[in-house]
């Protein structure tokens, strides 16, 4: 069902100021863990509720124009993520741009990392359309929030405490799969592949301190 004009305006107010910093997953209101099959459903869910055509009569021209521009960004994110190739290329791009982190670690010593928490995505993710099954491993972390009362973007997770941690709990499953690949590569001495996989893992779970530390350690020297 279409949103009300007030809901749309509240959404625009919220996303416009940070429009340039949003990841593709945020635009689609998905967790970065979302399965590929969830992408189309997420785009359709936004289209069903906020497509500019729905507000042609209900919004003044200037607001409609804002909506078209923001919706155009959602389309841009969908365009990149809707195919497996496109999604992989996107992940490579963002991981290449990911800033190096300060903590040190490597996959091999990862068992002794500080405890990170899996961050919720910056925006409250709305569930994919009912026709689409939820992502296999992790359901979207947050339930639909009425847009008028949406929570502010969450702050990054606290830099970890001191106790040991299992990598499986330190990152989301998609990142974990990549992390395991990095471990495998390191065991065979293939450092470059390990680095690449860690970067991709960071893209899949930008909040994981463990991963950032691992990358810093691997890229040193």
């Amino acid at each position, binding site marked *: 069902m279409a949103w009300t004009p007030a809901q749309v305006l509240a959404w625009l107010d919220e996303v416009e100021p940070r429009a340039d910093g949003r990841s593709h997953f945020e635009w689609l209101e998905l967790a970065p863990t979302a399965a590929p099959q969830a992408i189309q459903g997420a785009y359709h869910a936004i289209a*069903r509720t906020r*497509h500019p*055509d729905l507000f*042609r009569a209900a919004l003044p021209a200037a607001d409609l124009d804002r909506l078209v*521009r923001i*919706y*155009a*960004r959602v389309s841009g994110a*969908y365009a990149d993520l809707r195919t497996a190739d496109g999604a992989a290329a996107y992940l490579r791009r963002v991981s290449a741009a990911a800033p190096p982190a300060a903590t040190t670690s490597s996959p091999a010593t990862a068992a002794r990392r500080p405890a990170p928490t899996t961050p919720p995505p910056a925006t409250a993710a709305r569930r994919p359309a009912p*026709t689409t099954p939820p992502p296999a491993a992790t359901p979207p972390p947050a339930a639909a929030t009425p847009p008028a009362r949406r929570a502010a973007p969450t702050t990054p997770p606290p830099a970890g405490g001191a106790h040991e941690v299992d990598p499986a709990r330190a990152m989301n499953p998609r990142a974990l799969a990549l992390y395991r690949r990095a471990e495998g590569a390191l065991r065979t001495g293939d450092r470059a592949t390990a680095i690449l996989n860690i970067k991709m893992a960071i893209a899949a779970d930008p909040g994981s301190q463990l991963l950032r530390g691992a990358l810093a350690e691997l890229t040193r020297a």
Partner: protein
Amino acid sequence: MGLAVGIDLGTTNSVVAIATPTGVEFALGPAGERVHPSVVGFQPDGSVVVGLDAKHQRVDFPATTIYSAKRLIGQNVRTPLVQLALTGLPYAVEEGPNQQPLIVIEGRRVTVPEVSGHVLAHLKACAQRQLGQAVTDAVITVPANFTDAQRQATKEAGRLAGLEVMRLLNEPTAAALAYGFGQHKDETVCVFDFGGGTFDVSLLAIKDEVFEVLATDGDFFLGGDDIDRAIAEFLAAEMNRQLRVDPRPDAGLMTRLAIAAEEIKIHLSEATAAEGTVDGLLHRGRSLSLPFRLTRPQLDELIRGYVDRTIELTRNVLTAAHLEVGAITEVVCVGGSTRVPLVRRRLAELFGREPALRINPDEVVAQGAAIQAGSLSGALYRGGGMATRDAVPTAALSPLAHGDVPWAKAAAPARPILLDVTPATLRIATAGGYSEPILDKNLPTPIERTRVFTTAHDQQTRVVIECGRGERKRFAENEPLGTLVLDELPPRRRGEVKIEVTFRVDTDGILHVRARDADTGASCDADLTILGAPTRGAA
């Protein structure tokens, strides 16, 4: 606001319709016709006739009866394809401002949007007469692969007809909407639209009320007109052989042969051979008759190249959408040229299934446009079935004509969502004659993308951003769209000034370009002045 109608503005034929709670209603012409020929006849007294009447005068006044204007609309008159098309036309065309074609009618110059504007005004008048109310707004369909210039020129035509163009809707998307609206479908369909002047093929995922175009391709210079021309060439050769008269330099004779060619073609859609004579061929004061015989296999041979091209484009679109033929649940045939048996056969071979039969290829596009017009104006209801092939009320039965509109009593309005795509890659020229894509083909619209470029020379204070459309790496091999200039850049070493170029394609498929100096924020926002597009007050 008055009523909002949907209009299929075709190369050969146009159709106008409106969504009512009991089904889509078509507006009939003066002779009760649902399909209005897109023909405009300019009379010596300055008046115009449109539709069937104009079509009837085509043989007698070939130089002042304009048909197939859609083939010229928004075209750059210098492009080779247009020049080729012009050689076969019985009316005169000149180059006007901004390289747009101007049609010369007894010394007067008429723009192509003006011609199409007359067609639209006629359709509007038919609708107003039938519905007894003012028609103010319209959704007008265009071929999916229409360029910016063609879209802008079509909008201009609507404006000239006194219509607020709510949306330019891609024809195959309109057809899919008519096919699936209100049917709760979960399907992947192929819409194959082979009309009088253009060919489009689109793949869509239909999920209940969401109609998502997955990929589209086409050729806006491929249609029934080309088949007619192939047959007319055959007849011209026969005339030369049998009667020792070469009709090619004579516009009147070629018009006569083209009309005969279309009749022969339509006959061969039912029969396996066509035999007869073309009469009334006026040459040096004599009226000649040309006997002919053409079999269906001969016709197939004449047009094989064209049909091959439609099949090739259909394969391309499947590849672009990463789909196998087996994933297609239905083939929707649109356009009169899909009645050609060779086309049907090749399609059935490709998909291993017969196309959907319950679709009327002449009406389905207007029907979709009407549904979208209703949706955009908030006056669309699921009503008593909006499915294709609904019973259609005649003028006397129209609920709208009686002011008896039960909309208020109906349930919540239906809002189908159409998700369309960019039909071609949009790019900018870069150093060395190359180009970089900003927006790829088949991306969901509306869409916005920004890329950052740098200056190519030291102390460069001005960049000229040339925009083009096409799939080629070398810029010159693409179709030029226009240029944008960003001035007064700070003089720096090359590569130090960063320029953000943003391309945005809106819901009508029209491109907006912005260039911005990333440091100073100085920006230059422009709708490109596109070559071939109409300029206000041109002629």
